[in-house]
């Protein structure tokens, strides 16, 4: 009996020690391994112990924006080189704060696969899905259309893969259609309006009548709305706002009504090929030589790029608009990127190339900083991330809507270019504080971290 008692007592003591040790170990475990606590958690396309990871570059390789897509792809290839520690490093030399070490991401070599969005939402979704399911990419990035961006980021949210948007300017991308897994570095139509307003007032006064020609899809609608809000706040009247089909080609039947409308400003909410055609035709119809209401008739293109300026040729000279970034910027980050890109390809990068290069670096840096590819942790690292040295001054990825806030450029088609690439003259660098807004005004829900 006593033996039994002693046995029980001895067992209890041992048990107590064992349980206590186990409990202490368990209690202390998170403190030792908190950084990798979620490492055991599996997620889609977890690279695990693999020696490499893949990015999916989903850009328009065919269709109307193929040239922009080609430039995006050039920038991504350069970013991959720099992340893997090859080349001159580009913006990795100027980015602050920087966690990347130039040895890939978390020690894994970065590789990539490409897809063709064709600038069509369904094709873009299909190619993103293929890259996620078959190629096992950890991140999707690229694109040159808001329709595509909204469609692809919806898919990425469903599939739990982060989407770093390329060129998309609609307010909806980080507004009513925003997603937890989608991030936009590019500026938006609202910011274009805010940036352009004071310059329009200064150059054209407060007594103007504007006529809008607008591409009939999400980007055109939100840009028209934003620019209208801005110009009407200046005291301008809106004579008419006419929707035009995307890819109309010949815009003459939409331009002739402008001649006798009483308007003295034509605002072209067109992009890419449409903008090149509508601007060329507006100039052919003599709009820039006209005098209406005792004033010179003016044309405004709220969003344009160097590639578009190249297409529009002489007609773009003197035209006001906004742009996300221009190669002529003299900050250290822009200079490093232009040098790197120019040495590689023999010409400077476009704004599409810039935004895509930066997006690739930002994602890679966020993974390195988070210490994991687990998307919710990467998302949390990107949300509210403040950085500098990547062009456009100090920049922040706002947590509430995943929109980047940075300085915006008001540009004018250069009338006296000093070189073949000097097509845009930076008229004004509008500080970030002047284009910021409350995230609530565009509605939308980011959605969950865990999917």
């Amino acid at each position: 009996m006593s033996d039994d008692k002693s046995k029980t007592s001895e067992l209890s003591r041992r048990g107590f020690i064992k349980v206590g040790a186990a409990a202490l170990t368990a209690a202390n475990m998170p403190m030792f391994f908190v950084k990798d606590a979620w490492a055991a958690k599996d997620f889609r396309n977890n690279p695990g112990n693999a020696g490499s990871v893949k990015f999916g570059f989903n850009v328009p390789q065919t269709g109307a924006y193929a040239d922009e897509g080609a430039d995006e792809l050039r920038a991504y290839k350069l970013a991959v080189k720099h992340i893997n520690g090859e080349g001159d490093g580009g913006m990795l030399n100027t980015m602050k704060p920087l966690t990347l070490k130039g040895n890939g991401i978390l020690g894994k070599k970065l590789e990539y696969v490409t897809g063709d969005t064709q600038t069509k939402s369904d094709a873009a979704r299909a190619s993103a899905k293929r890259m996620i399911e078959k190629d096992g990419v950890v991140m999707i990035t690229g694109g040159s259309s808001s329709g595509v961006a909204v469609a692809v980021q919806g898919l990425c949210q469903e599939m739990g893969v982060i989407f770093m948007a390329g060129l998309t300017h609609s307010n909806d991308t980080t507004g009513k259609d925003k997603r937890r897994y989608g991030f936009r570095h590019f500026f938006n139509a609202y910011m274009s309006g805010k940036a352009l307003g004071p310059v329009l007032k200064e150059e054209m006064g407060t007594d103007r009548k504007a006529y809008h020609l607008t591409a009939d899809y999400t980007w055109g609608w939100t840009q028209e709305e934003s620019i209208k809000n801005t110009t009407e706040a200046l005291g301008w009247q809106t004579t008419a706002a006419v929707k035009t089909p995307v890819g109309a080609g010949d815009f003459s039947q939409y331009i002739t009504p402008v001649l006798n409308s009483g308007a003295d400003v034509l605002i072209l909410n067109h992009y890419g090929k449409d903008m090149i055609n509508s601007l060329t035709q507006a100039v052919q119809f003599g709009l820039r030589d006209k005098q209406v209401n005792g004033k010179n008739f003016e044309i405004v293109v709220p969003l344009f790029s160097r590639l578009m300026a190249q297409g529009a040729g002489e007609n773009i000279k003197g035209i006001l608009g906004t742009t996300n970034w221009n190669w002529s910027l003299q900050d250290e980050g822009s200079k490093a990127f232009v040098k790197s890109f120019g040495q590689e390809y023999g010409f400077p990068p476009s704004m599409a190339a810039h935004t895509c290069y930066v997006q690739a670096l930002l994602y890679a840096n966020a993974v390195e900083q988070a210490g994991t590819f687990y998307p919710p942790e990467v998302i949390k690292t990107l949300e509210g991330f403040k950085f500098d040295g990547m062009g456009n001054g100090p920049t922040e990825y706002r947590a509430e809507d995943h929109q980047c806030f940075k300085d915006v450029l008001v540009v004018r088609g250069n009338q006296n270019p000093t070189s073949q690439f000097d097509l845009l003259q930076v008229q004004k660098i509008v500080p970030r504080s002047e284009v910021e807004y409350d995230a609530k005004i565009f509605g939308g829900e980011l959605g969950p971290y865990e999917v």
Partner: protein
Amino acid sequence: MDAIFLQILNGLDKGGAYALIALGLTLVFGTLGVVNFAHGALFMLGAFCAITLEKILTISMKVKDESITFFDAYKEQPYLEIWFGDFGTTIIDWSVPISILLAIPVMLLIGLVMERGLIKHFYKRPHAEQILVTFGLAIVLQEIVKSFFGANPIPSPAPEIFSGSAPIGVLLGLGESVVYPWWRLIYLLFSGIIIFAVFAFLQFTTFGMVVRAGMHDRETVGLLGINVEHRFTIVFGIAAVVAGLAGVMYAPILPPDYHMGMDFLVLSFVVVVVGGMGSLGGAVAAGFLLGILQSFASMNEVKAIIPGIDQIIIYLVAVVIILVRPRGLMGRKGVMED
């Protein structure tokens, strides 16, 4: 009133392009019985003849661009300007009209090669197969052009002297606000001349007479000992030249890109259906008619009543015509009626 006048001019202008493409399309259908969906690509190739000549005339010497300090960049100075100074600049400026001289033989050759190399093998095949193969050919031609010239539109300005607008309002007593681009007026005139030339060729030459006879009764003309096939091959070449010239002259209006032919093809095909398959007069009349209708449908006053009408008007008219008069406005009885 001014707005209506301008929209009529717009419609005629646009209709001129539709008519020129549709004319070739219907000529090929009337003679060879082939529905050629690559005809729009011929229009595009014509426009790229203008671009090609411009590129040839601006072959340049590469000079280091000293203004770029970040990397090695080069700017280009055309040899023509180096050798001939202002005269060289003028030749480059007039590259679009000059390219007509290049486009005629090039398009004729392309037309003949296309007909002998591919189309002739599909004469006796169903229309569906002809459409498939010619559509495929159009895509191949597009992709070839894209691989050489890229996807973005390439500006190809008219000569400086025609760059502004004509004060037609002042000339016609309609007011100063009625202006119309010089080059578009020239295009309208050019369309008229080409259409007249094609009709005159078919009407007043022996060759044309044989072709017209062949269109009506191929077998009988053949029995007379005339090689109709040979003539029809040349007709295909002529149709290619007409489409090509339409494209050359359209280049300053719409900066050419590889896809421009497809945009015009669909509309021109509707024009042919409305005008009547195989009817030359029908194609021309329907081209101008639909061009004008499309212009009017784009007026804000019309769109305020029926939103989006500008984008469907042509197809709406086509549906009505097919329902009411399947052979088209001026089509021959029995053609495409069953």
